[in-house]
């Protein structure tokens, strides 16, 4: 019996890794099939990918740099999942975080770093929180589904971001408030002041900034919040069964709004970190695609903070190695996006994975069920 309990212990740890690993593996294999069909060499491609992601210092730097925003947008989506909310809005929250952070970052000349930088980061979080809270409030008070609202708010955020840096044009339109007056026809903000830039851990050409610690801290904080605090217990309870939670005296409406705001804050922090640490300015092309990938990262990470870290790292490596893969093997870097999309398909449809690998049905408390209850749990 003693051995039985110890294997159960190992299974408890390994079990959650199984579906995501198989999904990733299947996606890579399917990607290889796509390459073979289009006449490319998958071995050359994957070795180039690996080389690009981990082959040297610059590779590791790229991977880590790409991982940071995935961690935070992944956490954003994962946190909302715990309350059975489907946050498709990380993209818009990311943009709002970028805009708020840059607005603080390009102003207030003369502030010391230890005040200006935190202030700009907080502005990013606040921007994302506001954008996340709106769908929460609308869900609670009008019943509007957060999926629809967050999708629509992504467009609003993207257009708002574009407006703030609008260059004005030649026909005398009013330029946006954050536009860099020296940029001519280019729609972008001025550079963030040095006092609001996140310091490099390794400067150019490596370009890894201290935001990596913020991402790690956020993962730990989210884990602590969900599993170690009364609020986290309430959130999970609402996620499992909203009616029971209400019956038990949990403030369901408050929890929903707060969760959406916190999820938005995480994505907003991602935008703030990317803006203050890497781009040092905001322009419409620094949009929130990483917010959509956050959905895949959260699902691949089984909506657990540690899982999200691992999944974000995988995605960071895929993106970090893509250019080198194309450089070395000639395989178009688009294949990486195909692989990432396949990962989403495989994790979002664990049934396919179970069928392929003949796994038995998981029990209901597995993370996969969070996805389905999101649609039914009103």
């Amino acid at each position, binding site marked *: 019996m003693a051995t039985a309990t110890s294997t159960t212990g190992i299974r408890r740890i390994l079990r959650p890794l199984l579906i995501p690993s198989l999904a990733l593996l299947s996606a890579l294999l399917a990607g290889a099939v796509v390459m073979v069909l289009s006449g490319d060499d998958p071995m050359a491609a994957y*070795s180039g990918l690996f*080389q690009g992601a981990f082959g040297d210092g610059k590779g590791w730097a790229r991977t880590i740099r790409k991982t940071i925003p995935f961690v935070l947008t992944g956490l954003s989506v994962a946190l909302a999942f715990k309350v059975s909310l489907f946050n498709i809005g990380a993209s818009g929250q990311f943009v709002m975080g970028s805009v708020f952070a840059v607005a603080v970052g390009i102003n207030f000349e003369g502030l010391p770093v230890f005040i200006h930088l935190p202030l700009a980061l907080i502005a990013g979080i606040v921007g994302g929180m506001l954008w996340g809270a709106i769908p929460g409030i609308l869900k609670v008070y009008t019943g509007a589904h957060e999926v629809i609202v967050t999708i629509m708010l992504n467009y609003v955020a993207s257009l708002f971001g574009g407006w703030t840096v609008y260059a004005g044009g030649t026909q005398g339109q009013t330029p946006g408030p954050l536009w860099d007056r020296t940029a001519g026809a280019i729609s972008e903000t001025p550079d963030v002041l040095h006092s609001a830039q996140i310091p490099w851990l390794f400067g150019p050409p490596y370009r890894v900034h201290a935001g990596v610690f913020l991402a790690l801290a956020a993962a730990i904080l989210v884990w602590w919040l969900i599993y170690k605090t009364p609020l986290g217990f309430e959130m999970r309870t609402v996620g499992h069964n909203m009616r029971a939670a209400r019956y038990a005296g949990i403030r369901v409406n408050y929890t929903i709004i707060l969760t959406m705001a916190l999820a938005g804050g995480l994505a907003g922090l991602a935008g703030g970190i990317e803006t203050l640490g890497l781009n040092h300015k905001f322009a419409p*092309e620094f949009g929130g695609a990483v917010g959509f990938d956050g959905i895949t990262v959260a699902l691949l990470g089984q909506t657990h903070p540690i899982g999200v870290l691992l999944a974000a790292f995988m995605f960071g490596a895929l993106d970090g190695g*893509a*250019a*080198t893969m194309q450089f*070395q093997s000639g395989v*178009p*870097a688009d294949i990486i996006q195909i692989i990432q999309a396949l990962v989403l398909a495989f994790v979002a449809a664990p049934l396919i994975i179970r069928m392929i690998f003949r796994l038995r049905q998981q029990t209901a408390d597995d993370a996969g069920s969070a996805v389905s209850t999101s649609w039914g749990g009103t």
Partner: protein
Amino acid sequence: MKASRMMKLLFLLTSLTLLLAACPAAVPAADSGSGADDEMTADFKVGLVTDVGRVNDRSFNQSAWEGVVESAEALGLAEDDIKYIETQDAKDYTDNIQQFIDADYNVIVSVGFALGDATTTAAKENPDVFFIGVDQFQGENIPNLAGLIFNEDHSGYLAGVLAGSLSQTGTIAAVLGTDLVPPVVAFNEGYVAGAQSVNADINVISTYHPGEISQAFVDPEWGAATAKQALDQGADVIFGAGGITGNGALQEIATADGAGETVFCIGVDTDQWNTVPAAQPCLVSSAMKLITPGVVELVTMASDGEFPGGNYFGKADLAPFHDFDDMIPQELKDLLAETKAGLIDGSIDTGYGN
């Protein structure tokens, strides 16, 4: 039972992971192979970084890459000495340029306005590498960086002369990407001036896309609707200048009543007869930026050691008339040739930028 099946799966998983992890073992071998090549030929290598998008975009990326391929043939470079990286994300410009620098490339072509900053920085940090910035205006003169730019007003002017001469109704139109981008404005102002030079009373309906840069060039529905509107207002020659937005206009006109008989369209940037076959029913010509020959000239100069830093003006011209060649009277062809010569020697002023 369950546990043992679990272990089997884990074993499978681990072995597959190891298999994947074994991949990089092949890398050093491949790498040292190409390293040996370097030593044998001590060659000249040309790399290209695209703007976000594919290298076969039938537009700037493709024209620039064709320039690289052509110059490689002219200089006798091996197929392995020219490579491109397709940018996936605007944040990656610097990284992608760096890949070529790290691999000791001699010339790096970066395609598009948006890569300007990254290219300038890289050029300053690597004075031994030649950089060609397609469509990148140079504010300062960096000896190892040439911005390949165009007098868009010149090709717009030629398109205007053609449109003004072809029009029966006295009304022509232009469907344009955003006025936030100066080249688009230059195309339009040249177009209007050119049309007025052949018909002083001509009515030109110019419409700019109202959105911001990220939407203005990728909105074919708006392009089609605007073209339709212009047709309804009696325009019979329409100039579509604005990426995919303009292509939407061309395709709309191609399906209009009288397309190719009484209603015509003019494309932009490249010969759109080839790039947008759906527009062929109405497409008389395109106002081209000759990117391919411009890139060939610059790469050749780099290999000869006579690289011109600063702005380098490529040629502007109209694309061939293709199936419409018989329909264009010889006088008009002569007028266009004269106009082109006049634009080059400066005797014709488009009025843009004055």
